[in-house]
């Protein structure tokens, strides 16, 4: 599901940009021709570093994103919804596998990525640090967070790094099921009883700020950003993706006679851009750095799965090993 906006690392202070200028020119010419980059091709240091960060964060987001929705599998209202939600959550974990594989092709091992997730060094999409309090939350997540993810992933799938594009192509096909499943669940509640509408409206009110955060802070044009755009690592500005999302989904929300908790939200007929109250970016930074309602739980659950699954991995590792009687 979930890429989220682009939040790249600042260029390293202590790294001298010592890419071979001839190879760099060949590399940039290749990208300008619209060719893709494969794992064993030469690539600039900064290209590799930022791609690892981007794809790894995307992978972590899939795996942590399975947790808030997974909360509701055991209590899904009815067998059909239980099947569908379990299938969706399984897809998310599968997406993480595809993305970890893509990141591994750049030289960071699976184990290093999991270590960095558990230690808090690597981040994941901020929205998953919020709780899914009711069944309606799962509907809002499956519809709108996955919709945001599709906007982001379709954009990224036109990027230059071939293994990431291949993973995204497969992921986007599966996301279209999530989106329709989520829309179906939202419409079911929205067209239901007053109590159903109320629980849905409440979930929407709580998820709107994280959804506005989802695409990341407005990006100030920087030399760094321009380089990543030129290399087709970054394919659109965070604000452009947010606009695209609002344009596609706000009308669908209003059509259901639901409201959004922002009195300034409107499409300016002249500029044809959406106007809105800037979400609280201080909160965004606070939560991303660990101080959100669910950060501790998410990482603790992931860590526990790793620790308590260790004996299984060890048992699988050497199935042929058998006890031998000491020789003497």
């Amino acid at each position, binding site marked *: 599901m979930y890429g989220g906006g682009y939040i790249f690392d600042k260029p390293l202070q202590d790294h001298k940009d010592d890419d071979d200028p001839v190879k760099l020119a060949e590399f940039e010419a290749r990208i300008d021709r619209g060719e893709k980059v494969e794992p064993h091709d030469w690539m600039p240091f900064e290209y590799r570093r930022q791609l690892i960060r981007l794809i790894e964060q995307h992978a972590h987001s899939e795996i942590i994103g399975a947790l808030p929705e997974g909360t509701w599998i055991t209590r899904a209202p009815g067998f059909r919804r239980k099947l569908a939600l379990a299938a969706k959550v399984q897809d998310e974990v*599968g997406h993480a*596998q595809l993305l970890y*594989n893509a990141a591994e092709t750049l030289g960071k091992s*699976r184990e290093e990525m999991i*270590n960095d997730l558990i230690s808090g060094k690597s981040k994941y999409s901020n929205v998953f640090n919020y709780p899914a309090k009711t069944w309606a939350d799962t509907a809002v997540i499956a519809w709108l967070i996955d919709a945001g993810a599709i906007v982001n992933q379709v954009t990224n799938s036109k990027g230059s790094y071939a293994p990431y594009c291949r993973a995204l192509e497969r992921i986007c096909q599966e996301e279209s099921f999530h989106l329709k499943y989520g829309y179906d669940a939202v419409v079911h509640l929205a067209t239901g009883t007053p109590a159903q509408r109320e629980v849905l409206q409440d979930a929407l009110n709580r998820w709107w700020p994280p959804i506005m955060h989802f695409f990341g802070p407005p990006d100030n044009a920087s030399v760094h950003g321009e380089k990543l755009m030129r290399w087709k690592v970054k394919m659109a500005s965070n604000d452009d993706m947010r606009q695209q999302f609002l344009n596609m989904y706000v009308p669908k929300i209003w059509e259901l006679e639901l409201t959004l908790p922002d009195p300034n939200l409107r499409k300016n007929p002249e500029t044809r851009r959406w106007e809105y109250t800037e979400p609280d970016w201080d909160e965004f930074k606070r939560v991303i750095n660990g101080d959100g309602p669910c950060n501790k739980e998410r990482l603790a659950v992931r*860590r526990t799965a790793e620790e308590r699954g260790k004996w299984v991995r060890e048992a*699988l590792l050497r*199935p042929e090993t058998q006890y031998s009687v000491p020789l003497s």
Partner: protein
Amino acid sequence: MSTIKSLDPRVTRFNIEEDDQSMQPLERRDYFETYEVFHQAKRGGRHTHVGSVHAPSPEMAFLFAKEQYGRRSTSTSIWVVRTSDIHTVGDEHSDMWENVPEKQYREAGFYKVRSRIEQFKKRHNDS
């Protein structure tokens, strides 16, 4: 130390300590080696490379591959191959893929006869 109280009753029942720092970092190869996966969607079709999985043995690689690449639509067969058993040519030899520009003589479209037949017939009828 306090344990995690979650909205998810399963998580609460796990009695997870909130600030447990005792986990040892994973070591290289804790997540096994990789296998490449080839998937056939219907009988008579080709096996197509679809991606890879981490697994401790060919049997487990097959199970993971079936779950990862065969859980939707139809599958009739899956092959798994250790990534390290795949042979290819290194990038230092990438110039071997450079093509001669003119290889039209290998293409069916290169061989055009109709106009010559028409000319031949015209000549023949004129004489």
